[in-house]
């Protein structure tokens, strides 16, 4: 006997679909008048569901099994289209993202529908009337609540922690859509089978199969996102490295130009001082000191290190941060200039960033130590910080809300350290953040590019 499809049953399904799709879509950028759109589109969706029900089961009213099944299938496909339209009205994002969220939402609803069916099977087999109102309602409520909560924790929350959904892998998305259609067919078949006297154990097995298929679909969608995330990260890293290399060259040229200018200025000051008494000695001394600050090219014995330390030194001066460096540049000579620039640049950027908003100006001090210990190069950075800081795997976790777009600096540093067979670790000692990078010094040092 085919399940009777009631109007309110179908409207409830639409409500479930909309809710699930919005769960996945909630972090997408919203269109203006979002709340109005939300209510309006939901009302429209539910009305459409009612309308579709009427056309399919009241007007068309198929009676034979095959046509009933086909009608049901068509109805659910239409429902998908309606959900996509409704959700699309609320968010200002690409069609693909909307499709993704709706597909994920659809699968969650499918899963809860499967769970509902399984519960009823068991109830019926235990001797109760699964079609009674009380049982039906209880079954639907339980399956919806349990499945939706579980999917929220397992899929939605981790997705949100990795940043806003932005789907580019379209072929896979189409594949997912196809799989969802199969899921629907599977679910429908499972509903029809009891009418053919299929034994309970087989029905339950098929129900389990359907649940597994739904979970797998969600996992695939999740992985798609994650891969995209990784791809995104790699692209961001390459872009960052190229930017940094450009910056390094610019910085180096600027510093050289400034050095030459300072040299000339100092020369002129000395010359002025040579005139007896006509120039204000104190003013000249002040001038010399000022020029001296810009001549504060750090000389560590390593060109790339000099460049980044001088650049960051000037930045610190500008931000009112005291940067103290004790650096034996020769011990990191085995690193490429680009890696040196990147590693130290990121380390100091993080330190500067942490201290920028400190309320006590006296806390604005960064200590950098680069030294050699036997065959290890040890890089140590200390700075004050404020606010909660959590660590995972020896790395500080970014406190910025959109985690997917931050934390690259630290990850980049770790990648570089690993590339040289080294280790990066960080910890907090009270109000002071301590970063350590330990790099084995290669036995045979490659010729240093100067």
């Amino acid at each position, binding site marked *: 006997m085919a399940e009777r499809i009631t109007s309110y049953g179908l409207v409830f399904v639409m409500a479930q679909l909309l809710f699930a799709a919005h769960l996945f879509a909630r972090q997408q950028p919203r269109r203006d008048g979002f709340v109005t759109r939300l209510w309006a589109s939901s009302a429209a969706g539910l009305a459409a569901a009612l309308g579709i029900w009427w056309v399919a089961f009241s007007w068309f009213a198929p009676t034979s099994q095959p046509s009933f099944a086909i009608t049901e299938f068509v109805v659910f496909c239409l429902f998908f289209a309606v959900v996509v339209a409704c959700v699309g009205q609320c968010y200002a994002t690409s069609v693909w993202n909307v499709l993704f969220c709706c597909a994920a939402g659809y699968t969650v609803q499918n899963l809860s529908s499967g769970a509902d069916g399984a519960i009823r099977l068991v109830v019926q087999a235990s001797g109760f009337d699964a079609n009674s109102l009380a049982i039906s309602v209880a079954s639907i409520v339980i399956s919806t609540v349990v499945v939706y909560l579980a999917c929220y924790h397992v899929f939605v929350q981790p997705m949100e922690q990795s940043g806003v959904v932005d789907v580019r892998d379209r072929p896979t998305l189409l594949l997912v859509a196809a799989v969802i259609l199969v899921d629907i067919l599977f679910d429908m078949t499972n509903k029809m089978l009891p009418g053919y006297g299929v034994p309970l154990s087989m029905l339950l097995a098929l129900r389990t199969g359907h649940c597994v298929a739904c979970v797998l679909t969600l996992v695939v969608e999740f992985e798609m996102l994650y891969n995209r995330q990784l791809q995104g990260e790699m692209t961001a890293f390459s872009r960052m490295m190229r930017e940094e290399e450009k910056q390094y060259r610019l910085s180096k040229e600027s510093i050289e130009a400034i050095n030459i200018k300072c040299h000339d200025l100092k020369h002129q000051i000395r010359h002025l001082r040579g005139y007896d008494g006509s120039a204000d000695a104190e003013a000249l001394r002040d001038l010399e000191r000022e020029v001296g600050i810009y001549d504060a090219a750090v000389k560590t014995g390593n060109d790339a290190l000099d460049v980044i330390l001088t650049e960051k030194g000037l930045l610190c001066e500008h931000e009112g941060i005291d940067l103290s460096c004790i650096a034996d540049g020769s011990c990191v000579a085995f690193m490429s200039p680009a890696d040196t620039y990147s590693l130290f640049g990121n380390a100091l950027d993080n330190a500067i960033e942490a201290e920028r908003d400190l309320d006590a100006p006296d806390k604005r001090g960064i200590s950098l130590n680069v030294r050699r210990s036997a065959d*290890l190069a040890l890089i*140590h950075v200390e700075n004050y910080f404020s606010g909660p800081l959590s660590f995972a795997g020896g790395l500080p976790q970014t406190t910025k809300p959109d985690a997917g777009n931050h934390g690259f600096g630290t990850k980049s540093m770790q990648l570089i350290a690993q590339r040289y*067979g080294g*280790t990066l*670790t960080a910890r907090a*000692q009270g109000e002071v953040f301590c970063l350590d990078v330990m790099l084995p010094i290669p036995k045979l040092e490659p010729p240093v590019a100067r």
Partner: protein
Amino acid sequence: MATYQILIVEDDPDESDRLRSYLERYAAEHGKDLHVTTYDNAVPLIESRREFDLIFLDINLPGISGMEAAQLLRAYDETTLIVFVTDLAQYAVKGYEVNALDFVVKPANYYGISMRMDKAIRVLRRRSGRSVTLSAHGGLHVVPLAEIVYVEVANHDLAYHLASGDVVRVRGTMAAAAGELADGPFVRVSNSHLVNMDHIASVRDGAVVTSDGGNVFFSRARKRDALATIASYLGGSI
């Protein structure tokens, strides 16, 4: 409670007083016992050869400069901690040549001093000069912790490899040994090996290279944590 002997070498009396007051404040806030001496030039430092735990050393001094004094000091003293206090940042960069712990930019402020003091004390705390008594098969050995390069499990015994090249075999378990050496600079690199971090020459290819040239391999389970501990220890963060 340990008393730390601190020397300030600073020719500017205002700066000197300020440093002293910061150290007093630090001592009070952190519950440390600091004994502070001040010189206004570096000569008594070299001449008296009085020992200190930590020296705050100005670079720009009358007579012999702070950097020169540090170089002379290092000729006979490898261990006293030096923190330069200076506004000549360029000269301080070379502080590694005299194994300076750090430097502070003049004029110093309390938080800058506090940060360096924290680090100095972390390093000074390592010099406990403790020894362990090992009851080996041939008799009792009293071994300073600093002498132990690494400890390994050998059948039912433990083998303590010393810097001198000797190996002391003792009956015992690694867990017990790790417990006994817990407040020393030791890191568990695998279930069967405990390494003295002060004797680590390098880390490469999944192993620690010790000062005597040996390789002690990490176990997969302990590698990540051990590396983090080593990096933090050698960097002065713990």
